[in-house]
């Protein structure tokens, strides 16, 4: 019976990693920016949920309606004010996101003095189970939200005009520009969507954790592993990459040693990089595009 529960634990944990990674993967895949501040955007989503609770008394599952649009706007502003002016120098963009990380962490620190907040929810802690299998609402919601988000994002990229322009820019920004696509605007929208997804992750994670300004760092390493494992810019990659990391961690932690679990999934990460550098679901050659043409 243990093994079934571990399977469920691993899948639900995969939901957490997938949700944190999906926005990062979009930004990474489309704009080719390694967004070091992604964990801090997740952190902002968490504190957004806390703010909505502290001022309006909202449950995080309602606050999501406010925080996600707010993070979309934050993403748009950050891209326009910080990243777009540096578009000619991609290395500087990476440094800029690192600077953003430090600013966001310290701003929240200055406001909260580092006190560990909790966001209460009426429903998040409810647990149900069959036999030894235990499922908590907060983790189930994250899993369902990730699945819904992945499908919606897939349809958005496939069916809508903006989605098509994002895919075109991903494949070849030079050609996209020649076809009349506004590359800069596409980037800004993409960054906004990626930030909104980070906000979604933050709000839904907030009932599980004790909030601290540095909490984004707890997820970011795993998120980068998921992105590279799954494949740059691939929605399915973030989804299944998250599941793989979650399952490996749950099984390795339970059957081998909780201390070694990170080492084990980074071992898998290295093997994938060597055998299939584009990731499991990435387009062959996609990992090189960013360096091949920076206009």
């Amino acid at each position, binding site marked *: 019976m243990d093994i079934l529960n*571990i399977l469920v634990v691993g899948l639900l*944990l995969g939901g*957490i990693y997938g949700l944190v990674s999906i926005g990062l993967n979009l930004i990474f895949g489309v704009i080719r920016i390694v967004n070091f501040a992604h964990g801090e955007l997740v952190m902002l989503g968490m504190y957004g949920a806390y703010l909505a609770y502290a001022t309006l008394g909202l449950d995080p599952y309602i606050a999501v309606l406010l925080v996600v649009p707010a993070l979309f706007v934050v993403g748009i502003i950050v891209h326009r004010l910080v990243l777009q002016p540096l578009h000619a120098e991609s290395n500087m963009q990476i440094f800029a996101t690192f600077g953003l990380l430090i600013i966001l962490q310290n701003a929240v620190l200055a406001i909260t003095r580092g006190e*560990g*907040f909790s966001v209460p929810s009426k429903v998040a802690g409810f647990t149900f189970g069959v036999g030894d299998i*235990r499922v908590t609402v907060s983790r189930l919601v994250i899993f369902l939200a990730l699945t819904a988000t992945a499908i919606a994002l897939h349809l958005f990229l496939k069916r809508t005009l903006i989605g098509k322009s994002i895919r075109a820019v991903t494949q070849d920004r030079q050609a996209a520009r020649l076809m009349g696509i506004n590359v800069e605007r596409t980037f800004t929208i993409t960054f906004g969507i990626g930030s909104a997804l980070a906000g979604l992750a933050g709000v839904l994670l907030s009932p599980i954790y004790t909030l601290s300004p540095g909490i984004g760092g707890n997820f970011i390493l795993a998120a980068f592993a998921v992105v590279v494992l799954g494949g740059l810019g691939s929605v399915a990659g973030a989804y299944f990459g998250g599941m793989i990391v979650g399952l490996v961690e749950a099984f390795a932690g339970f059957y081998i040693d909780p201390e070694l679990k990170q080492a084990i999934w980074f071992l898998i990460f290295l093997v994938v990089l060597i055998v299939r550098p584009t990731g499991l679901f990435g387009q062959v050659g996609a990992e090189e595009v960013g360096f091949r043409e920076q206009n």
Partner: protein
Amino acid sequence: MRGAMAALCGIVLAAGAASAQQTLRIGAINPYSGPLALYGDEVARGYQLAVDEKNSRGGVLGRKVELVRGDAANPQQGIAAVDQLVTRDNVDVFIGTYISAVSNAASDAALRHNKLYWDTNAVAAELTERKLPNFIRVGPNASIFADTSVRAMVEMIAPGLNKQPKDLSVWIEHEDSIYGKSIADIQKKLLEGKGVKVLGQGAHNFRAADLTDVVLRTKRANPDVWLLTGYTPDGNLLLKTSREQGFKPPVILMVGTGDTPETLEALGPEFLEGVFVVSYPRPDISEQFGPGASAYLAAYRKAYNRDPIAPQSLTAYTGMRILLETIEAAGSTEVEKVRAAAAKMDKPLNSYPSGFGVKFDDKFQNTRAIFTVIQWQGGKQVTVFPPEARGSGGSLKNTPRKQ
């Protein structure tokens, strides 16, 4: 009359000049910015209360005492803060520090300036093992953490479960840095010495995104007592996960953290009911156990308009009081004289508001510094161990745990 006025003016002028020249300056090294600032501030509040109290009674050696803060969140900053406080602010002695790594570096730096480093709140056992000639620790260390947790288990928890120590089983869980590991290793040795069955010793990273594996492994081992040493985020996550996974050990005993509002908000009073925490003595201890504890609480509330954020400030307050007494006994702030006076001090347990006594060993670790154990009861932290520290009517609740 005129003569009397002139004489009075003369005295006032002289006193003013004296206090300006001879203020006794104490450099307080702690993190006052960054993620560790909350407790750094809290410790400094304890120092300040002791200083204010002394100044209202005429100061030390006829000198007014002034606290000068040196902000240090890591060892490099600790060294820089000490250098700056000596050269710019002319401090006479140093006091600190609730981060052991900072205490380590800063006390070393203070030695180069031949200044005393009086430690009140760092717990790493190694600090006094260095035998630095300027280092004195008046507060409890990590091995006292381990010792108190084991004594509470054998003397209070085993009887509470109607068991002999040899029938008691324990899982030792700790965060995987030197802090958690050093405490866990001593716990294991002491418990096995008492015949208690140690079912396993597990380690985890305090920043891990998930600790379900840790909880399930412990659940499989099925211990009577779940002994947890870590920080606030991982402690909260472990308790939440145990609730989700239906892991209900008869006793949960936490070490170091878990006794603050941060844990109460995360878990709620119903779940916490009956959880034990080994931590710094709290102001609710009985007056016989900690004479002056309630006066301290009143002074804190008056000065800061709230209850203490964490119990560390009471230990800091007590540590500063003992420092000022020792300086008075030495008649000086020179390292050798203070040390000689400290070596002669002999106060029985329960002499100070935190329940401390004073008797230094040859490494200048205070052997009469203590931790106490609280139990969460109705959303409040109630001191339950040692038994003589309990306020009136204190007894164990929800032991063994029902929910």
